[in-house]
């Protein structure tokens, strides 16, 4: 076949072709750039090593196994000051995860509510939601954290105000919840006939909790079967049997039976009549946790509201009209027609919001919440002087945490996204 394109392969290769020949130029540029990048990197590493040597410091993670020497107020696993810095780090990491999970959950609820209501036909409701969104997302997170913290610390009564004949403050909900300037005390679940703990060498897991989780998984499976059966009957006969009472029973009964078998009851926090006025027993949600949780939630909730609103607006109006003409009520239209389609648009930006919550939780230090940044990245660094080692480790942990969250969310995204057939 005759061709007009000159055949370059015949000519010999000249060095100048690396720059002038468009086939090679891109590669040349990339290689040069990569070499510069690596040289820069090598220089940084070398400089760091030299400077560390000049300071007389080595690079070592041995400090992680030395005893930490400091106490941590909120610990999800057993910890005391004689345990290692590594253990303190894990305690901090768990606290980070705890507040991140709590904030993600609340932010999602707030965000979805605000996003949906912002599109409401009710003028006042829509405006209120606009105010919420604009107010919260335009003020830095750390200020919200401090505001919530100060409000709690200054305007709530001291524990001593709950004491004695002339008590000026009283507990709520049948004397089981105390809101003080040191945080909120709530009842604690206790099992009289506990199954004990499972010792996993590094930490213990409550067998009671595992049993409850197992029961819930079983309920979820059974409930799925009931729905599947209803679907089948509906397809065969055209009539859908009522399932709600069956499903309710399947969810509630096993757990209730298990709880009563375990001797479950709630222990209220109490204020001792004498001695230092501080509530004992119950679960203590410290001000630092509450401030961080609420601030991260309302702040990120404002962003999520916008994401949700955008997602809903992205669904064609025709869908709403079609649903309405089928006779669906507005709430059902939203739940059954709009939201499922909007989710496809909503989930990806939602991932970044969850990542933001996790990373922003490192602002915890502002209110003394003992997260990873406060333990490993704060006290441990300060007591051992291992800035570089601890900072690198901490970055690695946040990175791993973020990658885990985004891969989990991506799995979910793959499930809800439009399936093209």
């Amino acid at each position, binding site marked *: 076949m005759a061709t007009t394109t000159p055949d370059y392969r015949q000519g010999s290769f000249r060095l100048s072709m690396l720059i002038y020949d468009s086939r090679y130029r891109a590669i040349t540029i990339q290689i040069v750039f990569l070499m510069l990048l690596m040289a820069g990197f090598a220089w940084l590493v070398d400089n760091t090593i030299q400077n*560390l040597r000049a*300071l007389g410091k080595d690079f070592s993670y041995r400090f992680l196994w030395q005893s930490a020497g400091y106490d941590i107020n909120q610990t999800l696993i057993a910890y005391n000051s004689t345990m290692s810095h590594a253990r303190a780090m894990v305690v901090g990491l768990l606290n980070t995860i705890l507040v991140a999970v709590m904030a993600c959950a609340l932010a999602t609820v707030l965000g979805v509510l605000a996003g949906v209501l912002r599109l409401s036909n009710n003028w006042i409701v829509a405006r209120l939601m606009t105010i919420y969104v604009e107010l919260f997302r335009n003020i830095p997170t750390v200020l919200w954290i401090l505001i919530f913290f100060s409000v709690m610390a200054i305007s709530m009564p001291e524990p001593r105000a709950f004491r004695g004949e002339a008590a000026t403050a009283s507990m709520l909900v049948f004397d089981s919840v105390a809101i003080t300037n040191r945080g909120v005390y709530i009842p604690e679940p206790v099992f009289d006939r506990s199954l004990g703990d499972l010792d996993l060498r590094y930490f213990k897991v409550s067998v009671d909790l595992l049993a409850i989780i197992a029961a819930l998984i079983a309920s979820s499976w059974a409930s799925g079967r009931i729905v599947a059966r209803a679907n089948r009957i509906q397809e065969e006969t055209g009539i859908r049997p009522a399932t709600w009472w069956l499903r309710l029973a399947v969810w509630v009964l096993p757990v209730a039976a298990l709880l009563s078998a375990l001797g479950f009851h709630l222990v209220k926090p109490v204020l001792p009549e004498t001695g230092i006025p501080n509530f004992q027993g119950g679960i203590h949600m410290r001000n630092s946790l509450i401030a961080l949780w609420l601030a991260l939630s309302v702040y990120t909730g404002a962003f999520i509201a916008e994401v949700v609103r955008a997602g809903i607006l992205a669904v064609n109006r025709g869908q709403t009209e079609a649903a309405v003409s089928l006779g669906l009520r507005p709430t059902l239209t939203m739940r059954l027609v709009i939201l499922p389609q909007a989710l496809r648009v909503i989930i990806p930006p939602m991932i970044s919001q969850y990542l933001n919550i996790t990373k922003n939780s490192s602002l915890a*230090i502002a209110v003394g919440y003992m997260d990873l940044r406060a333990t490993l990245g704060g006290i441990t660094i300060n007591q051992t002087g291992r800035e570089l080692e601890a900072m690198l480790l901490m970055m690695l942990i946040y990175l791993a945490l973020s990658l885990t969250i985004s891969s989990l969310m991506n799995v979910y995204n793959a499930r809800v996204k439009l399936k093209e057939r």
Partner: protein
Amino acid sequence: MTHKILLGALAAAAILGAGAAQAQTLNDVKNRGNLRCGTNTGLAGFAFPDANNVWQGFDVAYCRAIAAAVLGDPMKVDFVPLTSQTRFTALAAGEVDVLVRNTTWTFVRDVDLKFTFAAVNYYDGQGFMVRKDLGVSSAKELDGAKVCIETGTTTELNLADFFRSNGMSYDPVPIETNAAAQQQYLAGACDVYTTDVSGLAATRASFADPQNHVILPEVVSKEPLGPLVRHGDDQWADIVRWVSNALVAAEELGITSANIGELKANGHPNPEVNRLLGREGDLGAMLGLDANWAVRAISAAGNYGEIFATNIGEGTPIGLARGLNALWTQGGLQYTPPFR
């Protein structure tokens, strides 16, 4: 992604190290024309900016004495307020030439964090402060208390040891600065505030109702506080050490800011006075300074006793007794090696 983060960290480390690599702190200070002195963010009596924004206090007087000896002017000091968490990084990174910030001389800080403690300017110990109406008269009754502490301090570690060895529980409330701790304590967010006794006295003196707060009798640790510098520049460490010693020696020898001019001009029968004031020998040159270094250091804010009395002594609202910090000749621990 990983790469970028690592790069950032290493860049940070490279910058961090850059200041420490240079050995000649004295030259740096002279070329710059001012002394960078790391102090606390604000503690009455020790280091705080006054109404005219001029730094005042016991630790500040040390910065001024060093600047006077090295640069000839006690006002040529750049004060860098540091929290207990940031102080060591700032010193190691060369952001400050010397740290005078109620800092305890410990083995780890000296040996592992690579700092040189030049002197002890205040022998202290950790104590506890509570509101009077808490009805507690001993630290042994603090079981179950909420305790405000500054994080990144020896306080934090002593506290853990004290409660542990007494079989008591407590709930630590970690706080970054003394100001924030004070606010939390006054708001009743904690039952107890614990730090060095001198710090407690200074904090209490700034309360509206100091009479309603007591410092409990127990002193649970040894906290020798003093100025420190980076390892690796012995000349600079010597300067800081001997300026501090000169202040104590001046008190021992009866040299005060009032009589120093006359002693310098007319001399004194005691040759050590003459050596200190540069009339005899050449101690100044040995330090890399001129003959009048000690005269200027002592004139800056007076001798050790004067600095103590004007800033934190019994005549001030802080009202600390000399106690352990009296001269050794008066039953205290302040003592200086001889000037010869």
